[in-house]
């Protein structure tokens, strides 16, 4: 049957793409167990880098900060970006200026946004810390969320919104009950995208962080450590981050009784 062939083809595609995604990751995981410090030679299996990692307060603190920044900026930008996308798509006729402002965060070079925000914050005398990183990450994140949600809305059937309005539902209820559920896969995709961007972002975080230790994020810490190349300790950390994420997913699956939001 054609159906079965297509399904097999899909599995094959998934296999190839996932192999591509995970080949470097398996190298990274492998290196985290390499006894020697250089990535060039395998000198034996060891878990000592994990031990070293768990006593490295700087890295652990930075990992915690990164999580805080990513969670907050994702939450904020998902809400703002989704509302923006809905508003923009309902309006239909958006002027060039509006489109410009919505696209701009994606194309302004990172370093420009970073320096601009730092200059601006210091001009206003804003005390900097994790909160300034968060609000800065929201700037570009909301544009990405908005773009993903808009892609989903391009073929959206607005008549259901009107029907809901005709039945007397308030705008808010219509949004919550009608629009958001339909958009959920796009919103989740947007949120995942925002989280991924935020977790990895270095230059804007470096510039908008406070000067002290308290607002150092993981990418900042790792960039600074690059002087000595990537040490197995950092590979160990990357491995742990992924392992913890998988565990967190498994736990949330359980909490939700096997159902993920958006279904």
């Amino acid at each position, binding site marked *: 049957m054609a159906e079965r062939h297509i399904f097999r083809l899909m599995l094959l595609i998934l296999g190839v793409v996932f192999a591509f995604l995970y080949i470097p990751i398996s190298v990274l995981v492998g290196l985290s167990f390499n006894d020697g410090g*250089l*990535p*060039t*030679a395998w000198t034996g299996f060891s878990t000592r880098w994990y031990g070293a990692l768990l006593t490295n307060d700087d890295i652990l603190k930075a990992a*915690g*900060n990164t*999580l*805080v*920044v990513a*969670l*907050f900026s994702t939450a904020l930008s998902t809400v703002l970006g989704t509302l923006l996308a809905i508003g923009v798509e309902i309006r239909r006729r958006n002027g060039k200026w509006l489109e410009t402002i919505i696209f701009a965060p994606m194309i302004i070079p990172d*370093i420009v946004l*970073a*320096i601009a925000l*730092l*200059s601006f*914050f*210091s001009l206003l005398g804003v*005390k*900097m*810390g*994790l*909160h300034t990183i*968060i609000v800065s990450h929201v700037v570009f994140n909301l544009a990405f969320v908005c773009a993903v949600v808009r892609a989903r809305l391009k073929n959206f059937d607005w008549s259901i919104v009107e029907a809901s309005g005709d039945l007397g539902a308030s705008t808010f209820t219509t949004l919550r009950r009608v629009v958001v559920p339909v958009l959920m896969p796009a919103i989740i995709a947007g949120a995942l995208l925002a989280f991924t961007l935020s977790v990895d972002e270095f230059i804007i975080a*470096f*510039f908008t962080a*406070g*000067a*002290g*230790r*308290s607002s*150092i994020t993981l990418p*900042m*810490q790792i*960039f*600074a*450590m*690059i*002087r*000595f*190349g990537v040490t197995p300790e950092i590979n160990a950390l990357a491995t742990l981050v992924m392992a913890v994420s998988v565990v967190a997913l498994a736990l949330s699956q359980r*909490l939700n009784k096997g159902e993920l939001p958006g279904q």
Partner: protein
Amino acid sequence: MKRYQLHCSIWMTATLTAFGMPALAEPLTVSNWDGYMAADAIDSFNAETGHTAELVLHATNEEIMGKLIASKGVGYDVVFVSSPFAEVLHNLGLTEDLDHEKIPNIANLYAEATELPHDPGNAFSVPYAWGTTGLCYRSDLVDTPTSWNDLLKPAEDVSGKTTMLATDRWLLAAGQLALGYSVNETDSEKMAEVRDLLIDAKGTLLAYDDTTFYAKLVSGEAELVQAWDGWCNYGIGENADIKYTIPSEGSDLWVDTMVILKASGNKEAAYDFVNYILDAENHRWAAENILYKVPNEPAMSGVDASLIETFPNMGMSPEEMLKFEQLRDVGGAQRDYSRLVSEIKAN
């Protein structure tokens, strides 16, 4: 219900961490490169002086400069930067004019280190480490290089196995030195020659690299690289066949310095910190562990002789180093330098 509480508490903890309660007193904030001072230096400084200092890291001079200039230096107290960058900070009015009374250990510096051209008399910067830029190579795989041209016009079997530093000034310096020009040369005709030489050299390079070149030597991926002496020592530590040499045309004299920022709200502690680093014992630690020469006379005289045997460039005297020219801030010509590098990389 339980789940709800769990979620709430996670968010609350996160909120508190994010917007945190501001600390009462700001700690002394020192920004340095990773691994450029003792891991416990901050702790022992705190224990010894009763101050609260904390260390933050920057990966490059450029990065910390951007941040200091955009924020007018607010938040930082002591920063480690290379001398041309310290010069810029001084010219932009961001550095503190140093009161030597508050840094008694400054007397430990070699006489040569107090009269460096970028800051004679240490008016705004204190040298922390210094050295040369030369060639680091696998003596078991290539003939001993003697000239910058051995790097820029490599023999056929070395071609494709060389790297140059990626930072503008040092990249240009290799060409400037090879042609016998000053490392601060700004004459446009001479610099056009430098550019052409470096464009030709680029065709023979493996890569531009200023972080992992020593690892490339160890793995054999590269055989001859442009390197700062201290970083070459990391390679020598891994493989004794790796050697360092200064080509016959010479080198630059690089100096990494400590500056105190004018905007610092912790000046007393900042002075104490600089003084603490200049202590003979503390500074000797730096020499022995990061394998960089330090401009501190009693510190260097205490360095283990066997270390100098393993890493011969550690034994270079200040007098020998001072023969070389320091990279200076070239002011308006900086724009030309930047364009030259773009031209080299676009070709």
